């Protein structure tokens, strides 16, 4: 028992820098055993850093033959090493799942011996869970770069999501910090899994029963702030990966300094770039759900996101020609572009205005961020002011009235790293 506890401590600690936590996207049903997948995902608890815990996220082992400077488990790092046995992982997963602690298993591993040997072990675990334990809960499996296609294909038949991390946004960055790796070894398996998914999907149109293959799709992760990329570079890479590999998610992980000696990396004690990470996620959402094009938000002139205001507001301030938008007549596509109005509120507005012109007091109650939105929209009873205020004034107004959680933090330390 004590030994298991120590292993869990080491191997959970080593896995936590992988930020992917989602348990959504799969419709796997309980077929006579235990467990099913919840399509929207369920976060079972949250740690004190505010991140959700939905999966038991562990490494099979933190022994690794690679020496990537940004990774805690790198060969040259002096940390305690441990390895779970296959049975231990199965036992932990089942017992946590049965107590409703978790939504499923997130299994990754350091690479020991070689890629295939590692991948075989991971495959053995997921197979045991699915067949011996008749477990139908969520499984997120890391694809091991360099593993053979046969192993990846077989694993895909048992898991819900697969992912493989880009680690650093650019090839140059990767050369610098992890000379043994390259982006191609990530792209190849991503492309392979994507093709398999598409192939099975087209077969499913003709054949009644095709096996489910990685039903929740693939994701990847980039470390932010370890190397000096611009936000434009980062988001361009993300955008390309969304398009080329049909990824479900790209995760941005603010670099948490883990050792002193590397001269190229931010040193221990410097805060992880949480605000920048937040802005990148906001941009990611604008691209995927708000129909923004990347060059509207980031371009050669604006290659970094504004840390003071969110990217939609920043775009609106740069493009006053689109505003104010009349919420009683504008179409959905324009309404979701108003800063402070989300998709839910936009749908409510579209429904409600069929019953009569909407007034300010009604919008205030619908759950929009009125302090931000008021400068960019007109309601039935909005006071028309002579001459439009300059966008600089609007910005000042919003910032002075707003209650940003980042108030007072901007420009302290975080920015200096990248200037």
């Amino acid at each position, binding site marked *: 028992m004590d030994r298991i506890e120590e292993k*869990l401590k080491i191997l959970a600690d080593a896995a936590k820098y992988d930020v992917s936590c989602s348990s959504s996207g799969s419709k796997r049903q309980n077929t006579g055993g235990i467990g099913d997948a919840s399509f929207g995902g369920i976060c079972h608890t949250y*740690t004190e850093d505010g991140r959700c815990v939905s999966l038991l996220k562990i490494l099979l082992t933190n022994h690794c033959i690679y020496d990537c400077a940004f990774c805690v488990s790198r060969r040259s790092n002096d940390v305690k090493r441990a390895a779970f046995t296959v049975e231990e992982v199965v036992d932990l997963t089942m017992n946590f799942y049965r107590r409703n602690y978790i939504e499923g298993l997130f299994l990754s591993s350091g690479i020991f011996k070689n890629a295939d040997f590692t991948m075989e072990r991971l495959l053995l675990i997921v197979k045991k869970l699915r067949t011996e334990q008749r477990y139908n809960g969520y499984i997120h499996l890391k694809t091991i770069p360099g593993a053979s296609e046969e192993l990846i294909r077989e694993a895909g038949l048992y898991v819900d999501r697969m992912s493989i991390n880009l680690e650093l946004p650019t090839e140059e960055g990767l050369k610098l910090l992890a000379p043994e790796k390259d982006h191609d070894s990530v792209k190849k398996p991503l492309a392979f899994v994507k093709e398999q998914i598409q192939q099975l999907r087209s077969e499913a149109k003709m054949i009644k029963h095709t096996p489910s293959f990685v039903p929740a799709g693939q994701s990847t992760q980039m470390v932010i702030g370890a190397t000096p990329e611009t936000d434009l570079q980062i988001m361009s890479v993300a955008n390309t990966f969304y398009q080329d590999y049909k990824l479900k998610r790209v995760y941005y992980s603010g670099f948490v300094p883990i050792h002193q000696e590397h001269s190229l990396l931010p040193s221990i004690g410097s805060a992880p770039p949480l605000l920048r990470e937040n802005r990148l996620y906001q941009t990611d959402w604008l691209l995927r759900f708000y129909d923004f094009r990347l060059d509207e938000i980031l371009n050669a002139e604006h290659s970094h996101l504004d840390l003071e205001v969110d990217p939609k507001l920043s775009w609106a301030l740069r493009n006053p020609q689109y505003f104010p938008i009349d919420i009683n007549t504008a179409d959905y596509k324009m309404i979701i572009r108003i800063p402070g109005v989300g998709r839910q509120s936009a749908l409510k507005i579209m429904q*409600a205005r069929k019953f009569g012109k909407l007034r300010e007091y009604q919008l205030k109650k619908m759950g929009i961020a009125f302090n931000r939105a008021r400068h960019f929209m007109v309601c039935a009873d909005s006071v028309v002011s002579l001459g439009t205020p300059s966008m600089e004034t609007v910005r000042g107004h919003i910032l002075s009235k707003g209650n940003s959680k980042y108030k007072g933090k901007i420009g302290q330390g975080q920015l200096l790293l990248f200037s």
Partner: protein
Amino acid sequence: MYYLFDHTFPGLLCCVFESFERKEFEITPVLEEEFQPDFFSHTRKIVTVPEKAGRVQQALLQKVGRQTALDFFKIFLSEDREAWRALFSIIQYVFRYSPEIWQNYGHPDVLYLVQTLKKVNRERHRMKAFVRFHKSRDGLYVASIEPDFNVLPLISDFFRKRYADQHWLIYDVKRGYGLLYDQCQVTEVHLMEEEHAANRRRTSVGDTRALEIPLDDRDRDFQRLWKQYYSSTNIESRRNLRLHLRHVPKRYWKYLTEKEYG
């Protein structure tokens, strides 16, 4: 005029039935035991008749569809008196004029109901996440909860499908009833009166587990492992207690294994 009913959903539907039968439309439905009569108030005691409630429910299904009818039931489970009043008035409106009122988010009653619905749905989702089973010596997985709203009926299907091969009991300490699953069907169970009273005493003095059940030998081990995992997966340099508390408000900690005091 006040209609006095019995705090059940069929009871509320019967109020609707009676109000149409008697053509009394200026109605506020209130709970019989909560009603404080004053000198001028007229009241009518509504008896819950399943057939009448069934007819109203059928009519509702036809008028507004399955989803909205379910939403009405969910709103009822909020146990919020103001929501009950608004719900009653909106159902009346649906039958007298138009079911489209439900999309009019500019209407104060509709907006209030939509917001209540959101709260109930959130609580339902929370209970899917925050239920923590303890395994008893005889193999029953037991969990106690104290949800803000009466959401047990809304999570029953979820747990039945997911934990189909284990016996489980989820007990609502606040409302004094639970769901018991025996690998075949879910049944509603109640504690005996004196057990319930003893339970109330125990929970009010701060005992974290409401039900006293001998645990499986390995259960303590897995609780310990879970706590270990919970603390090792936290990244200290990203500490953000404000966000943490927003996601896991303190009132839920009592039943969360990883948050248990001591």
